[in-house]
């Protein structure tokens, strides 16, 4: 496993190094699909320059990243490319480990199910290649390559999230809370990953998920204490770094109130560009609640499968966050091979992949037509954005359906029969 992984790493690093040195790097760094006002490298450099001039980097609407990023890049700005590649590779190694630990879970499950659904369970042989596939999906995904070449801080966010996954699956509560806190500190949305993390730990420690049990609440209190404590520490540290609380409205206020309406691949910009001031707050709340809203129902449904819940939650964040980029999309796409056993139940693969491919190609085309050629307008670009998000949602819901269907088959057998013995079909109502 080490050799193919190393080979893959070398290939990925070569591709990125080649693109870094070519003239495409500036082109990619300006694309709105790849960088957003939060993650753009140009803004990080601006922020550092402002700091060198003695001005707070958060003055003016330039820099929207957290102070810890300032700290990190203050010393690493000349080695930025290497930093991003290193974080990327760390990402991969972490995912690799994540998947390895997932294998254990399958072994546990095998005993519980009736005979004919054994073919649904994956054999260790099949699962041997999954870590490599995950690594490949992430490293060679054009979205990640673009994101890395653009030096978008989304890559760092992904790395922290991968660390969070690793620590969760390894069972380390403290580290998991800390990394989740770091991820939340950078962009608010990963807070919803608390729920799957807690569910996972409870499963591992055999705490039943029951509202009346004391152990359940006690564990939640512990985890939240660690999480909120580290968040508090981080925020205070950031205050000490720059000596002011400027960063709170600039980072969190920016993410939540969406003042910048530069087009991106998300759903916020067009809607809020045509919104009347009177209704802005209302719709802002509606859109932001949309991200957090799916946590509770999904947790209730998937309380026995927290890892899948993490995947779903991650996908929901990537689709509905206020400034998504293709780097966020790449993160959850990388996890798809982990559920390759659901392949036989997926219904819309062809449609989704065609739409995603077509939209990815059409994004730059319609941008050019709108901004440079002037023969299209923002509606064209928004249509493609909508379609891209619809395709993503379809992908996520398809995987959800396939997962639930597999669970159903595992408990009820693969070939379902009606009462009179004839073959039955499952319908999703």
């Amino acid at each position, binding site marked *: 496993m080490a050799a193919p992984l190393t080979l893959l790493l070398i290939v990925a690093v070569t591709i990125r190094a080649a693109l870094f040195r070519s003239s495409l790097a500036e082109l990619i760094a300006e694309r709105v699909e790849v960088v957003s006002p939060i993650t753009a490298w140009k803004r990080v450099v601006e922020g550092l320059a402002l700091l060198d001039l003695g001005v707070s980097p958060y003055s003016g609407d330039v820099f929207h990243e957290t102070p810890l990023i300032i700290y990190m890049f203050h010393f690493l700005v000349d080695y930025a490319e290497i930093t991003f590649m290193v974080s990327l590779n760390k990402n991969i190694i972490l995912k690799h480990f994540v998947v390895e630990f997932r294998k254990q879970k399958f072994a546990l499950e095998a005993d519980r199910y009736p005979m004919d659904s054994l073919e649904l369970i994956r054999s260790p042989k099949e699962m041997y290649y999954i870590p490599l596939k995950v690594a490949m999906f992430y490293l060679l995904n054009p979205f990640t390559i673009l994101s890395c070449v653009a030096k978008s801080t989304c890559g760092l966010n992904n790395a922290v999230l991968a660390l969070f996954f690793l620590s969760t699956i390894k069972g*380390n509560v403290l*580290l998991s809370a800390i990394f989740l806190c770091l991820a939340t500190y950078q962009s608010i949305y990963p807070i919803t990953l608390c729920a799957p993390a807690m569910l996972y730990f409870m499963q591992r420690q055999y705490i039943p998920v029951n509202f009346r049990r004391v152990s359940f609440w006690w564990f939640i209190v512990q985890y939240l204490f660690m999480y909120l404590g580290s968040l508090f520490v981080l925020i205070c540290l950031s205050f000490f770094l720059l000596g002011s609380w400027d960063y709170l409205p600039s980072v969190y206020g920016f993410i939540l109130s969406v003042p910048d309406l530069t087009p991106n691949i998300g759903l916020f910009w067009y809607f809020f560009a045509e919104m009347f001031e009177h209704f802005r707050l209302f719709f802002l709340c509606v859109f932001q609640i949309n991200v957090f809203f799916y946590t509770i129902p999904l947790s209730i449904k998937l309380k026995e499968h927290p890892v899948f819940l993490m995947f779903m939650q991650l996908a929901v964040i990537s689709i509905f966050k206020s400034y998504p980029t293709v780097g966020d999309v790449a993160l959850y796409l990388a996890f798809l091979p982990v559920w390759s056993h659901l392949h036989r139940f997926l219904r819309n693969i062809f449609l989704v992949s065609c739409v995603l491919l077509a939209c990815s190609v059409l994004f730059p085309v319609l941008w050019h037509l709108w901004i440079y*050629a002037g*023969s299209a307008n923002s509606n064209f670009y928004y249509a493609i954005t909508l379609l891209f998000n619809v395709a993503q949602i379809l992908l996520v819901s398809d995987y959800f359906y396939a997962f639930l269907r597999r669970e159903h088959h595992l408990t009820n057998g693969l070939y379902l029969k009606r009462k009179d013995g004839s073959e039955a079909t499952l319908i999703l109502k």
Partner: protein
Amino acid sequence: HHQCVNGWMTGCVKRFGVLKRYTNTGHLPFKNSAGQFFSSGHTNNWAVLVCTSRFWFNYRHVANTLSVYRSVKRLGIPDSHIVLMLADDMACNHRNPKPATVFSHKNMELNVYGDDVEVDYRGYEVTVENFLRVLTGRLPPSTPRSKRLLSDDRSNILIYLTGHGGNGFLKFQDSEEISNVELADAFEQMWQKRRYNELLFIIDTCQGASMYERFYSPNIMALASSQVGEDSLSHQPDLAIGVHLMDRYTFYMLEFLEDIHPASKTNMNDLFKVCPKSQCVSTPGHRTDLFLRDPGSVLITDFFGSVRKVELTMDAINLTDPIKQMEENPVNGEEQKEVYSYADQLPVSEIIHQKPKQKDWHPPDGFILGLWTLILLVFFKTYGIKHLKHIF
């Protein structure tokens, strides 16, 4: 393209329109039409043709405007008297499979673009503000003549608008609108400034009749392609070009105008009958209550053509009063000029020569200490104290 000079009518008309002298040139039958000839009080013709939509799929609006331009030019109005406003360039659009052409018929029978089209306002210059300024004449002094409507009180003006419209408005460029009230007020300004003798207003948009509802100035006749609540429909798509080429009303109007030549006697009543509901699907409307003459006596060429009245006279006229030469003012001696010099507002030279202060920001020491202590704490908590001996 024959010129508009007609040599077959003579006469010398006094102010109050009475026929004073009538030189016999042998065209006696035209005596009957003499009255008709002098019934309109205009001496020159202008046309303002506006297409308000951009984007490739609005090809038909540009084709509409260019068809009317073509007819108007063919019937004699010169380019200097036509203000053509096209909001987008279809002939040279990337998507035009036949570049430098704009067709108005399926199978590309009629290229209305030709090679002598003069567009006065193009692309983003076609705005509501510019349109109203052209109509009222309030243009900045630097505007060239070709962009001005230099009409006077003996001008008959044809105004043709096409694009996307609604009940009471016409959309310009997908970003702004002109309302019927504004248009009516602009025409009133024109009337008060004596900028027209008679005005023919034609509009080919959805719910076009709403645009002429508010007119209140005299001597305006208006035609529209559809009533309020109706949509004007397009005529035929061309599969080779991929878009609809013309709107129905203008298509049938063009067909009607192709039969007109400068000597035609067709009058406005025939124009009102163009494109009945069976052909147009929408009901074309017209408004003649503000017009002083009877529409039956108004010739099509009064607005669409530039039929000039020419007097042929055999008499010699004496020009008395020679023109006096004005004496030039003697040039004064060179005035004393004070020597002025430019004073710097900013002390530029000081700024340039000043070296920038190298102030490098460093994170505060307390922060670094605190951060690394925390990281170490977490590390040891997770992995246990026993690893210490591996580090030291």
